[in-house]
């Protein structure tokens, strides 16, 4: 066996161990799974945003070639479903959501009927033969319209289309707003997005000979999917095996419970054959959850010097036609709790209303609520700087929470606590890397020659690494916040980690190995990582909320420690000394200060399994399982800067530079960390400049039905991103890590918007809503020129 690593593995920029298979085209995704006798499901989706369903005629479909089954919602009523949310903010009115619409459809794309056939082509053909009578009803797609008197109503038990009202208050906003030198208001739109994964959703459910059922699904949360499918379809959970093979992106969209996730298992059991469903891209646009979709009204009170005294926020969060898995929590806890951002704003008042509309359900998408919350704080502080004509950097510096104030509870909040941070340090590092002063003068100098450049600044913090289980109970989750890891050492001293986290591209095989290698003191190549199979992995919650290193990684760390602790007992017995005299370093147990020859980890492992010389009452084996329940959540933070040039004649934005300085605590792997920042920033730039889901306000039709209309950025649309880090270890977990996955998508939208607003500020433009498309910017410039009489 090779020797133990001489250097600490945490902090090494290792290349991803999982990449070879993927780069060689040997990845195995759900759609690669083809089983003997496998049938194919296709779904008929509602063409109407809101309609009463009359007769559903399945006769032609049933007699079409290859068709084994055709069903409408009526046939499933009372058999499976309804689909329940997993996070319900206390006091929410939860609309009932059938697996297939029964008497009413509420969004374009909702399941109305299905066909199972021997080939996919036959299933599609037969779906085309289903005849449905609809009585079209008035539809509403916009959250501001949906809450007005007289708006079309979606659910009898949700009067006014509001499922949830959530309030946050700290200090006395009313008082400070009366006393402040200035109070300004703004209305900002957080545009609706489609979480575009390279791999769309897919599922195969296969009955096994022993009566169990295996479900292959691209899932960020395999164990939670096992529970949800078991409970909603009525399958004993222990007879259900959920396997998540390679996943081509998740971003939150693959952690919810969808109709197809329930239909395939149900139909596979009914038909006694494997049933597969695979989502086309255009289906994905109208059936997989969307993200964001908020309108915020913000009021900010501040002094002549730019010190913010108070902030008031009213959020309308559009959640689509039903409350999806986590939907009531996003616009509420996840958004307005974080509305004050990195700033010390003691007087805060926020109200969030969760609104149902005739649109695709909206749920978690990279950052979920924290991008919306950071956008509130950042747009507010930028507006203050603009209003007072103060430098955007100095206003931030003046209002930042100070390093000595951590752990910090904003506005005296009971629910929010930022564990650590140093925002000034982030800002200084970012300004230096960006060469802020030089560029600031460059912007000013170029304006004279008709070149419009601008600098955007955005700071963020949030809480992630969900979460102490008790805390989740308080906020209405039907899940815990722990993560599970089993470290199993074989008789040669090599390790297999069974982790309840679930990589969708993050590189867990590499990063979890690094965490274990440091504790076990064995080489990386002697460690394997298993995820995504409930039959192999004991338990878990999965990957979301930037939790996999903080919680999943900590559980690997702790179970590795338990391995070493037990190994030390065995080593003491082998060395015939007292356990307290044994020390472990460089992969060997030794007795310092003696000439007793050390015993290696692999020898100890062998002893653990032959059991010949174990201490009394110590069980054989070297295999430890941990359910790690965190004691707190970590607070990553960052300052991002963008440099743009806007062409006022065309409205086109050219991104000249982008600097991200992030504090994500201890860096496990700087290369993977930078990759996470890059990906998040690209998705954030996408929200700021390119992506927007559009609905026809009159009939509720989805107008961005394909990638011909919905602009996901290509390589040419994004700049070189410079990612730097500052490491303030989190005190909330044993490895000091904070979450990272969501950081970029939180910071980039306000950063980009501020940069563009700065560039067009000579025209007197003070507000633009995302996405900042060229036509939108051009129109604003025209409007401003007209206003200025130019």
């Amino acid at each position, binding site marked *: 066996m090779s020797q133990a690593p001489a250097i600490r593995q945490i902090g090494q920029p290792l290349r991803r161990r999982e990449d070879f298979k993927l780069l060689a085209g040997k990845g195995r995704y759900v759609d690669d799974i083809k089983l003997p006798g496998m049938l194919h499901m296709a779904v008929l989706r509602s063409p109407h945003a809101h309609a009463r369903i009359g007769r559903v005629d399945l006769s032609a479909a049933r007699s079409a070639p290859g068709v084994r089954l055709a069903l409408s919602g009526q046939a499933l009523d009372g058999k499976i479903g309804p689909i329940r949310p997993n996070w319900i903010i206390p006091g929410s009115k939860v609309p009932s959501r059938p697996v297939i619409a029964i008497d009413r459809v509420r969004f374009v794309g909702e399941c109305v009927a299905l066909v199972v056939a021997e080939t996919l082509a036959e299933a599609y*053909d037969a779906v085309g033969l289903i005849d449905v009578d609809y009585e079209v009803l008035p539809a509403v797609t916009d959250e501001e319209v949906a809450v007005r008197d007289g708006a079309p109503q979606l659910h009898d038990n949700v009067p006014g289309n509001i499922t949830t009202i959530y309030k946050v208050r700290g200090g006395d906003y009313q008082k400070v707003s009366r006393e402040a030198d200035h109070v300004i208001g703004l209305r900002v739109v957080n545009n609706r997005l489609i979480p575009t994964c390279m791999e769309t959703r897919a599922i195969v459910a296969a009955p096994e000979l022993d009566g169990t059922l295996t479900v292959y699904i691209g899932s960020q949360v395999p164990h939670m999917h096992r529970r949800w499918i078991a409970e909603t379809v009525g399958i004993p959970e222990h007879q259900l095996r959920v396997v998540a093979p390679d996943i081509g992106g998740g971003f939150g969209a693959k952690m919810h419970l969808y109709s197809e996730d329930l239909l395939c298992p149900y139909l596979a059991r009914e038909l006694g054959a494997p049933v597969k469903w695979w989502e086309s891209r255009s289906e994905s646009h109208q059936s997989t959850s969307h993200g964001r979709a908020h309108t915020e009204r913000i009021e900010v009170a501040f002094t002549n010097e730019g010190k913010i005294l108070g902030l008031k926020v009213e959020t309308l969060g559009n959640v689509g036609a039903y409350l999806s898995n986590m939907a009531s929590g996003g616009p509420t806890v996840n958004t307005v709790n974080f509305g004050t951002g990195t700033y010390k704003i003691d007087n805060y008042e926020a109200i969030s209303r969760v609104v149902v509309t005739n649109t695709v359900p909206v749920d978690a998408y990279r950052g979920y609520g924290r991008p919306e919350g950071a956008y509130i704080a950042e747009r507010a502080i930028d507006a203050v700087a603009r209003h007072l004509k103060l430098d955007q950097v100095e206003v931030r510096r003046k209002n930042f929470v100070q390093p000595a104030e951590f752990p910090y509870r904003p506005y005296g909040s009971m629910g929010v606590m930022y564990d650590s941070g140093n925002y000034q340090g982030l800002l200084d590092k970012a300004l230096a890397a960006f060469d802020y002063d030089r560029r600031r003068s460059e912007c000013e100098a170029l304006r004279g020659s008709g070149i419009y450049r601008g600098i955007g600044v955005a700071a963020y913090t949030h809480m992630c690494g969900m979460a102490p289980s008790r805390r989740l109970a308080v906020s209405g989750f039907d899940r815990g916040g722990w993560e599970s890891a089993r470290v199993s050492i074989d008789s040669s001293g090599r390790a297999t980690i069974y982790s309840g986290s679930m990589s969708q591209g993050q590189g867990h095989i590499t990063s979890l190995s690094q965490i274990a290698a440091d504790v076990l003191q064995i080489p990386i190549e002697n460690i394997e990582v298993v995820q995504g199979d409930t039959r192999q992995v004991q338990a878990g919650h999965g990957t979301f909320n930037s939790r996999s290193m903080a919680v999943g990684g900590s559980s690997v760390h702790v179970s590795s420690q338990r391995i070493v602790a037990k190994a030390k007992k065995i080593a003491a017995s082998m060395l015939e000394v007292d356990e307290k005299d044994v020390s472990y370093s460089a992969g060997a147990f030794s007795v310092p200060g003696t000439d007793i020859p050390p015993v290696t980890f692999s020898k100890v492992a062998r002893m653990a399994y032959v059991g010949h010389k174990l201490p009394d009452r110590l069980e054989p084996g070297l295999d430890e399982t941990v359910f790690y329940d965190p004691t707190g959540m970590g607070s990553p933070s960052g300052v991002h800067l963008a440099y743009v040039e806007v062409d006022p004649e*065309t409205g086109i934005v050219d991104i000249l530079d982008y600097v991200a300085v992030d504090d994500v605590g201890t860096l496990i792997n700087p290369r993977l960390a930078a990759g996470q920042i890059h990906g998040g920033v690209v998705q954030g730039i996408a929200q700021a400049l390119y992506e927007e889901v559009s609905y026809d306000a009159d009939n509720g039709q989805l107008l961005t039905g394909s990638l*011909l209309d919905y602009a996901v950025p290509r390589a040419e649309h994004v700049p070189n991103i410079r990612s730097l880090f500052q490491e303030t270890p989190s005190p909330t977990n044993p490895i000091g890590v904070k979450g990272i996955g969501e950081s970029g998508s939180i910071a980039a939208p306000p950063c980009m918007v501020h940069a563009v607003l700065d560039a067009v500020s000579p025209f007197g433009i003070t507000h633009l809503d995302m996405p900042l498309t*060229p036509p939108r910017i051009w*129109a604003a410039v025209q409007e401003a020129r007209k206003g200025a009489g130019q």
Partner: protein
Amino acid sequence: MIPAAFDYVRASSLTQAIDLLRNDPDGTKLLAGGHTLLPSLKLRLASPALLVDIGDLAELKGIEISETGIRIGALTTHAELFASLPLNEQLPLFRQAAGLIADPQVRNRGTIGGSLANADPAADWPAVMLALQAEIEIAGTSGFRTILARDFFVDIFSTVLEADEILARINIPRPTAGTRFVYRKIRHPASGFAVVGIAIALRLSQNLVSEATIGVTGAANHAFVGEDAADFLIGKTLSRENIDQAARLLSEATECLSDRYASADYRANLIQVELKRALLALTP
């Protein structure tokens, strides 16, 4: 998704393909590069009974350069047009435009004939054909007929092609020595198609414009020739005032399209901005 069932014939002659079209004009579609047809089949926006694959027809292939002009077979791919050195020596417009069409995968399959026959109002080749004063050669039941590109496009996705006709070749007159070319395009961020695209062929004699042709795509129901703007420039210098006036005339030449992404005003503005920038690029 999966297309509805269809029959497939790989045509071995132009005559056979035309006969098949004539047999069932509504139910038959020609398959060339397939980059418009296949997605619409998969989305079941089209479900023809028969696909006639014309990929084997040698008479629709190749780039021929002669003393009098250039002949391009309809099946020539965007990538071939991009890569052809002899062609681009004569007409660098091909490389400029082809390099802005979609992405390399699409360019490797998509054909110029398919693009022209499809007449997408935002496709690139129509503007280029107009600027080059191309002639379209059409094969039909009674042989070949030719039509100027400027008379070829009728409306959105509509041309003078009859249901039993096949776009066979494109003939481009050899440009006068010294003619300069430019293609500029503002790409739609999602589709890559032109929000506005402008192709110009222009010749200067002693700093005066002696020849000018302008083709515009993306702005209107179909690509059009900017005749007034080009006529205005003849005999004039490319001064700031003359360029501005030409740009005004060009944007007044059409009612611009308006859609969810870009308003008619925005497109009219882009016509002006892009023409000005194109002409500035051609100014010595």
